[in-house]
């Protein structure tokens, strides 16, 4: 796509002006600006649509209508929100560290847009093709942890620091399972480039590597601070946590960055595990949109149904549960890759079967991490007297 736009620009400028100095560099810069403009606008439009969609969908799960006043079916609600946020007063606390305070929201928003530069939207619709794009994606997503701790420390607010430290602990712990879960895919495809992974997926990788898909999904939920891992801004406990002291458009950037991160996580998941733009007849960008919407639906569905974890359970889950699952996945996949080498027909099906049979049963062991073995079904029926005592001590007999 880069060459396509470059050629168009070259042709159209040559019609008017013949000879410019540094024509090469100017044209490259212009092409880059146009592509970045298109991606950022697309993502921002997606964020507005996601805000509307989430509020309506959450309302329907709770048997109520979501917002439906502004515009047809309430589409303009997010625009109204954005305008309101822009007009609010911009407050900087007196004891705050001004430079870091102002820079922190940007650190959250910018890496999210960078991720979209390596995602293929179609067969040749991509901005850039690096040959280590998976590593690039993993590296860029870890910058968002920095923004949270910057925001909290610069606010000089005890509750903000509390929530930010929790969040940083969680983000650091979940990067390892997320990274290691992709090793299985890299072993199968023998390349770290997202383009190669997309081309390789005749069968979507979610069916071939179920354990890796589950670990990656839960890890992504933790990285974007979403239920059931949203304890950084647990509204019922800390009332917005690290964003406490932000107002006006800076808070708007935090809000926007969260939703953009959700879209980014959904896009990465659907590219790596669901096949990206692969699909019959219709153009690739249509299929990618459908898959992203499906993944976002599942994310919102989980938000509507499950309560949240506590911090020590979250860390237990990462270090003792998901990390070991990824190790199991790597062992099983590497053995399978050696047995059925590249070039064999139906290779993916055999590897998938090996994963389902040998790796999936380990998933049930995670629930031991959540201390569910204390459940006894006695609580379902009524107990009359205190269990474990012969005579009921405090029950007044009727004379």
């Amino acid at each position, binding site marked *: 796509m880069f060459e396509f736009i470059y050629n168009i620009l070259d042709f159209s400028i040559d019609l008017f002006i013949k000879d410019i100095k540094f024509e090469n560099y100017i044209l490259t810069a212009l092409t880059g600006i146009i592509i970045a403009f298109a991606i950022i606008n697309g993502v921002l439009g997606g964020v507005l649509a996601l805000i509307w969609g989430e509020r309506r969908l959450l309302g*329907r*799960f*709770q*048997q*109520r*209508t979501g917002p*439906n*006043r502004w*515009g*047809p*079916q309430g589409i303009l609600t997010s625009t109204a929100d954005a305008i309101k946020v822009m007009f609010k007063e911009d407050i900087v606390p007196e004891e705050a560290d001004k430079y870091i305070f102002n820079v922190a929201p940007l650190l959250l928003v910018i890496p999210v847009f960078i991720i979209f530069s390596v995602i293929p939207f179609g067969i040749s619709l991509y901005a850039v093709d690096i040959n280590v794009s998976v590593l690039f994606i993993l590296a860029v997503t870890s910058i968002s942890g920095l923004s949270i701790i910057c925001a909290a420390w610069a606010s000089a607010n005890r509750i903000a620091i509390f929530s930010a430290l929790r969040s940083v602990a969680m983000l650091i712990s979940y990067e390892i399972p997320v990274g290691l879960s992709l090793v299985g895919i890299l072993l199968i495809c023998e390349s770290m480039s997202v383009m190669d992974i997309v081309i390789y997926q005749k069968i979507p990788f979610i069916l071939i590597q179920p354990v890796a898909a589950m670990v990656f999904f839960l890890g992504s939920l933790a990285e974007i601070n979403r239920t059931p891992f949203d304890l950084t801004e647990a509204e019922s406990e800390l009332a917005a946590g690290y964003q406490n002291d932000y107002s006006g458009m800076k808070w708007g950037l935090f809000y926007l960055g969260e939703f953009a991160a959700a879209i980014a996580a959904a896009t990465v998941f659907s590219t790596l595990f669901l096949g990206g733009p692969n699909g019959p007849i219709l153009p690739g960008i249509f299929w990618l949109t459908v898959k992203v919407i499906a993944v976002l639906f599942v994310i919102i*569905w*989980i938000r*509507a*149904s*499950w309560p949240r974890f506590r911090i020590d359970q979250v860390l237990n889950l990462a270090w003792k549960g998901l990390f070991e699952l990824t190790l199991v996945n790597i062992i099983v996949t590497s053995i399978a890759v050696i047995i059925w080498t590249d070039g064999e027909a139906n290779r993916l099906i055999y590897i998938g079967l090996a994963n389902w049979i040998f790796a999936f049963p380990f*998933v*049930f062991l*995670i*629930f031991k991490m959540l201390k*569910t073995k204390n*459940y006894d079904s006695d609580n379902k029926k009524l107990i009359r007297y205190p269990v474990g005592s012969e005579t009921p001590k405090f029950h007044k007999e009727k004379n």
Partner: protein
Amino acid sequence: MLGFGLIKGLSVTFRNLFSPVFTIQYPDKRVGVFGLAKSKNKSVLALFKENPKQILIAALGMAKVKVKIEQSPRFRGNEFVWYDDRCTACASCAKYCPLGIIEIVTHASEENLQAGGNYEIDKFDIDTGRCMFCGLCVEACPYDALHMGTDFEKGNYLRSELVLDKETLISQVKNPSSWFRPQFEENEYDPWTSEVSDSKEAGRHEKPNDEKIKQDWVNKRKFNG
């Protein structure tokens, strides 16, 4: 166990995605094309012939229809209904109010007799800004002159306008609620659609005539010592 509890929770929410909404959109709700037709009791084609623009607006989901919330006849609304020719200015309501917001000022006079005696009411103020609508004043009135009202949308810009004085109470539209007034419940009374402006229909009993009052007074004195 084993994660199935989580899946059960997901299935419950999923099933509720397809059940009807139980909230009420108030004061007006957004309807689609068929909702608009139902609210006006016409078919879609008739509406189209009348004004094609409103079908377009309804198809986008932006048409509005007014909504009325169901209330029971005993609802204690934000207004009072007062029949001035039943009131004798006995001030039972003022004495019984826990907050003391009813103010009654009278002077003795022989003309302009109210139904019960020789007082003329100068002032009968109820301060709805401080009222808690407990209904004890209505319970106290022996002549069924004061009733609770039905409406609740009585917002105002000034606190002084929340005080209902005598002229406002007399000239208001009278929709009494049947709180502590069982005579209204005998014939399926709906305070929203019917109005009781005749004070004779508002009470349980009529005022006994002077002869009877005197006889009762005498009898009580004679036989109870």
